[in-house]
């Protein structure tokens, strides 16, 4: 182990002797993190992020309008389309602002909206008759934002259902207590009055606050957090790949210079040599992460409450990328190949895995495809910590996937690594 450590220390000394490497390790990643952070809205101000929910009102009555108003009141972050689209076309409807159920469902499949709320025809009539009525809620399971809409729908449905029960109860009371409301119109007016009163009371009920996102201040996302919270782990992951994939070129050059062969001819085992080389590039990957995360800290990014979980994701990803680099290095022969492949890998795996933008905004098939990139798993872990108040438990799955992949890549690398 001592010799592996000596090899790693020597390689790190060689790396840092080249001042050009410092530019690639510090300056470029920080600049890119800031630029991509701004691109992701870091300096856009702290206006709340709106979550699109398409509402198709097939009833068109006062009660259905009340339902929609209830949704809006339940959560102000919801953009109820097409009603809230406004001049800046918040809903992304284009010139045609009408929204049919078919169109709304198409938008859902294309991830242009997070959910579709369908208010069926006869909604008001059935509600007033005390009959069961279903508000149909369509959602895309791949989108986490749909939970916010679902909570709002549940809250409003519950409230309206409750008001309807109050109304029905009032009708029964009118009959049983001999209030002399024999005139059907008077009875209906009494019931309506009871409903409105109940609905008014429901809306004033503090319990409704439980469904509002703003009730969870610790997960409130500022624009700074939204922008740099995406770019810091994203660019960090990408530049870890750039740095660690540098091993592809350096290993080939070391073979050409015969420094690896010279080590083999010394009383050093092949295992010690490989361990030393792996330790070198793993350490550089961790340093790269720390540089970008330190910049993130300076930019005001909140890394969440669980720094241990953050370290676990960071180390698991770096180990996975290091193992991948050493596995790929067994296939390459020239420095030109090494440069091309390292660029190709980093520039493919980074956007595919959501390093440049959140995977939530890409089509579902791209989200699925992105899972082949270790970046996607790392970003799952990072985003749960930075945006959802996650902890060690929430990063276990992505970290386990990264470590399993690292195990497979290391097995390939150890088996096929060339020393001559």
């Amino acid at each position, binding site marked *: 182990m001592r010799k592996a450590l000596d090899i790693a220390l020597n390689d790190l000394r060689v790396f840092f*002797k*080249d001042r050009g490497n410092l530019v690639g390790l510090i300056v470029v990643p920080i600049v890119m993190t800031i630029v991509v952070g701004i691109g992701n809205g870091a300096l856009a101000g702290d206006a709340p992020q709106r979550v699109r929910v398409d509402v198709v009102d097939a009833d068109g009555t006062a009660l259905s309008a009340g339902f929609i108003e209830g949704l809006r009141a339940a959560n102000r972050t919801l953009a109820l389309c097409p009603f809230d689209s406004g001049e800046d076309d918040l809903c992304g409807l284009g010139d045609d602002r009408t929204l049919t159920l078919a169109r709304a469902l198409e938008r859902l499949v294309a991830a242009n909206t997070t959910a579709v709320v369908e208010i069926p025809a006869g909604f008001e009539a059935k509600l007033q008759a005390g009959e069961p009525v279903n508000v149909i809620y369509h959602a895309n399971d791949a989108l986490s934002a749909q939970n916010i809409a679902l909570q709002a729908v549940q809250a409003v449905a519950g409230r309206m259902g409750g008001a309807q029960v109050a109304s029905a109860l009032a009708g029964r009371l009118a009959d049983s207590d001999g209030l002399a409301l024999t005139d059907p119109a008077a009875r209906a007016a009494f019931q309506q009055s009871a409903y409105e009163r109940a609905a008014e009371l429901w809306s004033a009920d503090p319990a409704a606050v439980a469904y509002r996102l703003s009730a969870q201040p610790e997960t409130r996302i500022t624009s700074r957090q939204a922008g740099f919270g995406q770019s810091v782990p994203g660019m960090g992951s990408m530049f870890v790949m750039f740095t660690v994939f540098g091993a592809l070129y350096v290993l080939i050059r070391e073979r050409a*210079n*015969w*420094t690896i*062969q010279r080590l083999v001819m*010394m*009383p050093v085992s092949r295992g010690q040599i490989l361990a030393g080389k792996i330790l070198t590039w793993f350490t550089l990957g961790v340093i790269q992460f720390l540089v970008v995360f330190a910049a993130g800290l300076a930019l005001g990014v909140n890394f969440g409450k669980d720094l241990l979980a953050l370290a676990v994701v960071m180390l698991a990803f770096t180990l996975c990328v290091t193992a991948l680099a050493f596995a790929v290095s067994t296939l390459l022969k020239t420095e030109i190949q090494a440069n091309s492949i390292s660029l190709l890998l980093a520039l493919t795996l980074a956007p595919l895995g959501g390093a440049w933008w959140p995977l939530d905004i890409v089509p579902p098939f791209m989200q699925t495809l992105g899972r082949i990139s270790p970046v996607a798993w790392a970003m799952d872990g990072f985003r749960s910590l930075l945006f959802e108040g996650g902890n060690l438990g929430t990063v276990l799955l992505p970290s386990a996937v990264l470590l399993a992949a690292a195990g497979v890549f290391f097995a390939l690398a150890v088996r096929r690594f060339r020393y*001559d």
Partner: protein
Amino acid sequence: MQTMVEVRGLAKTFRRADGTAVQAVKGIDLDIFKGEVFSLLGPNGAGKTTTISMISGLLTPTVGDATIGGHSITRQPTQAKRLLGVVPQEIALYPTLTARQNLEFFGRMYGLSGKALATSVDEVLEFIDLRDRQKDRVETFSGGMKRRVNIGVGLLHKPQLVYMDEPTVGVDPQSRRRILDTVMRLKEERGMTVLYTTHLMEEAQELSNRVGIIDHGQIIAMGTVGDLIQKVGEEDRLFLKVGDQAVSDEVLRRIQERVPGVTRAVYDPPGAEGEDRSNTSGVIIVSAKRGRRALPQLIQIAMEAGIEIQSVEVREPDLEAVFLHLTGRALRD
């Protein structure tokens, strides 16, 4: 004499990308004795580096084994390598590190540390005469200075056996002289055993107690320089420079048949346009007893064939002649 290196049936077969097998070394037997300089002499591609790479543990033999100081390179590689100092043909150094940093790192790989490491590095710097440049980056050194650091790395742990693979390749004559003197000092002052590979017969002849001549992956002759020269008897070699003029097989046949004492006549054609030419390209090489007496007839036959001889050189028997005698080819081929 005590044996330092014992090689038995050592062979290496490489597999090409198309699946065909190439036997680079074909079962070598070899003994190198303690305290001697043993040169492995052969043309490029003869199998010298492959043989040495197997002895030093870089390549695993396909068949056979070798021992260094009694330790098998296949079964006890770490013990065997502790006795071995390696000087590869390439400048296997970190160019951005200083001479001292390079020596310190490789010293640690040989298991040195602390004061022992510092003392050893100082001694080596003194030995290779680079103490005043120890804090300079290796990339700022001349080719000869880099070669000296490259040699120094192999001496750090005071090995019993030093292997040097063509250490004078690409250096100027002054640096070459210095390297050859270093080899002699290793033997004489430190009593080290040196395994030296070269394709330059002058180096092998000057340095070696014994020489093994290798060609096409086989040792074709082995012994002291004197023993080997005995193989060709008293034959001189005559080098008739003809430049770019064509020399037919008929002319060579006539030389062998008509000139008394001639045992062999070969033509070493000039290299292609722009190719780096050695001093034997465009030359008719004739092996003959009492070579000077054969000279007038050789010139006569050349004139008859319309070949103008530009210069003539007569050489006494040497290792080049031995190689020519054994293989029918010049050593540089």
